[in-house]
């Protein structure tokens, strides 16, 4: 594998390898502190995403490498009308590896055809964001010790939430996972996800509007935000928004080893009162995201650490 565009570019054994490397980094950070010395990561963010960019930059710095790049299109030559592929080809002359975010779907793939430097898709519009999914996978693996045989609740905006689609996609490659899809009727999982992933792989799933009904069966609850602009009218939004807000009260019937996840940033869909619950994992996802990005950088640069 040269580039990472989509979570499905990775084989299961490559995912295992990334998890193993990330766990090794967590266990012995010192061992990795100089392994990318002299290497440069370029973060090319044609659309701002401070959170993801800082995670990539922190990852490279902790590996002993350096960083360069831009954080929005206005500060790059794209503002002068240069094509994305030209920009990336130019940067490829300076950097050893590129993390790229762009509002258009497939932009990192188009760029990857014009450079020999490995490119990581750091989000291309509503299409793919594989390193978020890697963060989710490492979190689940660390919390549960497995990636199979789980009942996974996904809640909120299941129609537009690409992190949810990508997670379902990734976990569908492991055995015995089933899904409880909790959302308002307006924001149910799209047909193509049902047809191409769930039904194709004969995966069990239930669609419901009621979060509490299935709470006791869940091993994972993956929350996403229900955005106001997804609704046709304000009345529907106001009527529905509270049903998809997680509170300590709603968690009363949940398993003691439930893992509560969220790709962040959250607005109000998880009450801050849940933050102190030991089952809350969303800030661990942030940390794990950095370790998975470190593991990924090493893999793409072909650096092995003994």
């Amino acid at each position, binding site marked *: 594998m040269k580039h990472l565009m989509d979570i499905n570019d990775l084989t299961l054994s490559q995912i295992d390898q990334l998890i193993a490397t990330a766990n090794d980094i967590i266990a012995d950070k010192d061992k990795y502190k100089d392994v990318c010395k002299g290497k440069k990561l370029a973060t090319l963010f044609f659309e701002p995403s401070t959170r993801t960019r800082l995670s990539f930059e922190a990852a490279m710095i902790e590996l002993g490498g350096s960083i360069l790049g831009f954080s929005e299109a206005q500060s790059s030559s794209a503002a002068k009308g240069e*094509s994305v592929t030209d920009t990336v080809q130019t940067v490829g002359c300076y950097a050893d590896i590129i993390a790229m975010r762009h509002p*258009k779907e*497939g932009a990192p793939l188009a760029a990857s055809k014009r450079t020999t430097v490995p490119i990581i898709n750091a989000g291309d519009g509503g299409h793919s964001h594989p390193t978020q999914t890697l963060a989710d996978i490492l979190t689940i693996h660390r919390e549960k010790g497995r990636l199979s045989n789980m009942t996974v609740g996904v809640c909120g905006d299941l129609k537009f939430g690409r992190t949810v689609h990508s997670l379902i996609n990734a976990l569908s490659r492991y055995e015995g996972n089933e899904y409880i899809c909790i959302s308002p009727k307006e924001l149910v999982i799209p047909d193509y996800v049902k047809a191409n992933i769930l039904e194709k792989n004969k995966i069990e799933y239930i669609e419901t509007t009621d979060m509490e009904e299935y709470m006791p069966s869940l091993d994972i609850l993956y929350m996403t935000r229900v955005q106001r602009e997804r609704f046709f009218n304000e009345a529907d939004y106001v009527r529905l928004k509270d049903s998809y807000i997680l509170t300590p009260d709603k968690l009363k019937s949940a398993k003691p080893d439930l893992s509560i996840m969220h790709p962040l940033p959250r607005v109000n869909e998880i009450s801050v009162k849940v933050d102190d619950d030991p089952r809350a994992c969303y800030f661990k996802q942030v940390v794990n995201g950095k370790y998975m990005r470190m593991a990924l950088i090493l893999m793409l640069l072909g650096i092995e650490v003994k």
Partner: protein
Amino acid sequence: MKIDSIVNGIVLDHIAAGNSLRIYKFLNLDDLECSVAVIRNCRSKKYGRKDVIKIDSIIDMNLDVLGYIDPNITVNIIRDGKIAEKKHLELPERLVNVIKCHNPRCITSIEQEVDHIFKLTDRENIIYRCAYCETKSDKEEIW
């Protein structure tokens, strides 16, 4: 040109009845200097009715495109009045600059020099998806 007696040329046989003009247009046969015969609605043992196109010259042809429009077409290359080669088409795995992606959020909508690439993702139902954004192609539409 006598329709039946091509010496050196190409015969596209077993075209689904009604498809010949689309193929004629798509292969830009209008631009050829040589003679071209479009025979519509002739009887076929295999398909009931079929169209046939005869081209009185051996030209370069994008067989991927042809396979995409109609994988049942047979391409006969005629040399010295005999069939020198018979090619059976199939659905191509990849189409480059044959179908256009119409997703306004796709990178191909803003970058002029990026090739429009579609991949066959479901052979049974003949579904092609954009390599960049995974949007499904519209079977009727060809660039």
